């Protein structure tokens, strides 16, 4: 017997012991006439159903285990609910019908249009007519996010709008971060900080198992889709790198760009939750890279119509987000994570083009070529896609301090060093000598390393044995400079003859037990060692 299409049968009026047998015969006749493969009962006009009617549905379900009853009004739904029918089969409530005719259109996104239906409410009408599952999914994950502490807007009703479905939200007098950046460029730093704070909050959220899909499996699949588009060794490496990313249960938004972050009064809200997943934060960084740079690498003006700000702002934002997220201005550290994020980003972009039927003409061709070329270059120099997410989410190595090299930060540097020295019971006098030396080195970096610009310094404190000693390492990426090479001042001269300079380094040399300076890969590395 050939399996045919789904048959939808309308149930009308009252079904009770008086007419149940007739109705069953009638339905059976319709089924036989079309040789239906599956069955849907449309209860839109059903007013009442008794146990005799329910038994008819039970018998139909034996033949059609995936039987669905749809458009059930609330009185009838109560009967299904009380008798436990809605646990046995799919019983779908009727949705309230809403008209958007004459309503103000207040926004348009990739998957729907937002209308204001009255003073307090908006409805997001989905383009896709069978969006019901997506809508329910988004409501569910948004609720989950809210429970886990992520501020978001939740739709409180699903309605029918013409042939489509819509989600009803409270009307928010909110502005997206994209709009703030476009209208008030002076708020750039504030936007970047808030944006990263929310990002860390998302990634710091652990999600109970099974609640959200894994983003890694999507990317393993995407990497597979690139097989015919990369030389074999690159394709294999990409698949291996993807597979090697550890599964972690951190929340990932999946589409975290500046239109999905809104400011309402003083509260920052995350919206568009349908892509919520769990996984390693590198996947998120990949999609952020795409939103600000990757998508627009050829069509550089495209970002203007999407986000409302320029490609240059997009690049600056990406850079600042990385610095703030990673808590460093260290070029190498940022470059390393950026490389990983770009591999994720390009994999997604190429896989997306492939899925949409590769267009190898004009812009499509140029994009495909540049993304592919960049991806291969990145694969040449990358051996792992994971990084330690705790470093950004929970703070960095406790023995290291990354700090902007400005003299105003000196108290912070000494406080950091002193806290480590106190922990090992360093005598006060030694502590002062170490501080004097550390001050000298740090102030030197602040004044000269990046002059006239500013840059970062890293301070690392280590304690070692045999004999008990402490080493303090200063790393900067400024101009190569060996302070130890400076000539010592003549300490036997009178005040009039003494020069102001050179004193500090002299002090350092005479109070520390060992000093080393190296210039490696663009970094000045100076280590002070003092025996305790």
């Amino acid at each position: 017997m050939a399996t045919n299409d789904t048959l939808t049968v309308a149930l009308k009026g009252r079904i009770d012991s008086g007419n149940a047998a007739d109705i069953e015969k009638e339905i059976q006749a319709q089924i036989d006439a079309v040789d239906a493969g599956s069955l849907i009962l449309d209860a839109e006009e059903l007013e009442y159903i008794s146990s005799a009617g329910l038994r008819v549905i039970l018998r139909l379900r034996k033949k059609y285990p995936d039987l669905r009853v749809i458009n059930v009004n609330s009185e009838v739904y109560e009967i299904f609910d009380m008798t436990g029918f809605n646990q046995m089969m799919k019983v779908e409530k009727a949705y309230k019908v809403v008209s958007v005719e004459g309503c103000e259109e207040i926004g348009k996104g990739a998957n729907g249009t937002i209308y204001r239906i009255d003073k307090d409410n908006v409805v997001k009408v989905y383009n896709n007519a069978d969006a019901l599952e997506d809508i329910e999914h988004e409501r569910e994950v948004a609720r989950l996010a809210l429970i886990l502490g992520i501020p978001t807007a939740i739709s409180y009703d699903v309605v029918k709008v013409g042939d489509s479905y819509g989600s009803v939200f409270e009307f928010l007098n909110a502005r997206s971060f994209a709009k703030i950046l476009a209208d008030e460029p002076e708020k750039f730093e504030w936007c970047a900080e808030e944006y990263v704070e929310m990002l860390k909050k998302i990634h710091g959220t652990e999600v109970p198992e099974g609640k959200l899909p894994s983003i890694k499996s999507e990317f393993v699949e995407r990497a597979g889709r690139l097989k015919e588009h990369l030389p074999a060794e690159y394709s294999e490496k990409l698949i291996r790198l993807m597979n090697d990313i550890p599964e972690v249960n951190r929340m990932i938004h999946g589409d975290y760009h500046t239109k999905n972050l809104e400011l309402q009064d003083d509260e920052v809200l995350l919206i568009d939750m349908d892509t919520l997943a769990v996984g390693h934060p590198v996947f998120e960084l990949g999609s952020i890279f795409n939103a600000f740079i990757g998508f627009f690498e050829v069509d550089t003006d495209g970002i203007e119509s999407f986000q409302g700000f320029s490609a240059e702002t997009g690049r600056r934002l990406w850079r600042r987000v990385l610095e703030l997220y990673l808590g460093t201005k260290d070029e190498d550290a940022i470059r390393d994570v950026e490389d990983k994020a770009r591999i994720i980003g390009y994999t997604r972009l190429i896989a997306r083009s492939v899925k949409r039927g590769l267009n190898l003409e004009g812009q499509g061709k140029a994009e495909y070529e540049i993304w592919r070329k960049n991806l291969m270059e990145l694969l040449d120099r990358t051996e792992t896609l994971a990084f330690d997410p705790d470093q950004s989410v929970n703070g960095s190595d406790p023995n290291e301090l990354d700090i902007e090299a400005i003299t105003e930060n000196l108290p912070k540097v000494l406080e950091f060093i002193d806290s480590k020295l106190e922990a090992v019971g360093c005598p006060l006098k030694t502590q002062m000598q170490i501080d004097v030396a550390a001050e000298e080195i740090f102030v030197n970096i602040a004044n000269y390393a990046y002059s006239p610009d500013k840059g970062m310094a890293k301070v690392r404190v280590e304690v070692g044995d045999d004999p008990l000693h402490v080493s303090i390492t200063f790393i900067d990426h400024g101009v190569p400079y060996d302070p130890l090479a400076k000539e010592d001042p003549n300490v036997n001269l009178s005040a009039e003859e003494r020069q102001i300079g050179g004193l500090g380094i002299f002090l350092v040399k005479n109070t520390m037990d060992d000093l080393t300076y190296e210039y490696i890969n663009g970094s000045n590395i100076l280590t002070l060692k003092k025996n305790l």
Partner: protein
Amino acid sequence: MLNINKNLDGEKLMVALEGRLDTVTAPEFETELKDSLDAVTELIMDMKDLEYISSAGLRVLLTAQKSMNQKGTMKLINVNDTVMEIFDVTGFVDILTIE
């Protein structure tokens, strides 16, 4: 942080330092001192509560010493051990008058 307490008595200025004399606080001390030295012939610095001195602080002391050499005397009193050690290493014990 550095607290500077000045007490001018005729041509004699007594300056008590409390806290840290480092890169951050030295400029303020230098300005403070420069503005008060005009009619001073005797400068006394009380270092009893000075906990810390770095090369930036030493530079200010050196400048003050040079300027006082032109017109009078300067001496440091109540210098504690750790600060004295710094004066020792740098040869400042020979330049400054320390009681």
